[in-house]
């Protein structure tokens, strides 16, 4: 099944990013396709390029990047929401790309399911 994901909150402050990651990993393990993950509102902060979480804690930025690298998951950060919060084209954590909100609507149209994680 083709699943699209919307992540509304940044990493760490809210659990949304953790839950979305755990959901994506489980869906991939079961043979589903994560067709796109769209990051909106503070969700764009998941693509922050210079974060360095404590070494005894999980690294959510890296986990998203691995999802893109190992499974080809398309990680899309909203350009407008990103500019408001300092996340810009050419300066994101590995695995993310910047594009417009149309990519979210397209995911809603193209995917069999769209699941939202937020606060």
């Amino acid at each position, binding site marked *: *099944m083709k*699943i699209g994901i919307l992540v*509304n909150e940044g990493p760490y402050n809210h*659990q*949304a990013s953790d*839950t979305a990651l*755990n*959901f994506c*990993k*489980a*869906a991939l*393990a*079961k043979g*589903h396709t994560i067709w796109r993950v769209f990051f909106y509102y503070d969700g764009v902060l998941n693509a922050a390029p210079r974060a360095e979480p404590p070494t005894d804690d999980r690294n959510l930025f890296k986990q998203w990047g691995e999802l893109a690298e190992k499974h080809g998951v398309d990680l899309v950060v909203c350009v407008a929401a990103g500019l408001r919060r300092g996340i810009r084209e050419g300066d994101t954590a590995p695995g993310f790309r910047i594009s417009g909100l149309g990519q979210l609507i397209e995911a809603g149209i193209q995917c069999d*399911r*769209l*699941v*939202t*994680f*937020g*606060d």
Partner: protein
Amino acid sequence: MLHTVNKSPFEKNALESCLSHAVEGASILLIEDGVYAALGGTSTAARMAEAAKRFKVFVLGPDLAARGMDAGRLVEGVGIVDYEGFVDLVAEHPTSQAWL
């Protein structure tokens, strides 16, 4: 329809709003701080026990464990799923709606 609720019923109105909009027979999955609504012996437990008769109610096990709650404390009629079960619920229902 699969409804997800991630807020504590003691703190926010998300669960109450979900329960008052969901159509008879809908599925409701409690995740993150939403799992507290599944506990028995609380001021909201009667509301959840009644809801569990009209809806299929599930709670995300990993979120329950993280918060130190075990299955024995749940309101009757609430099922436990893991992340794979969450995925199955999404696959089984054409649409998901998040109550945030």
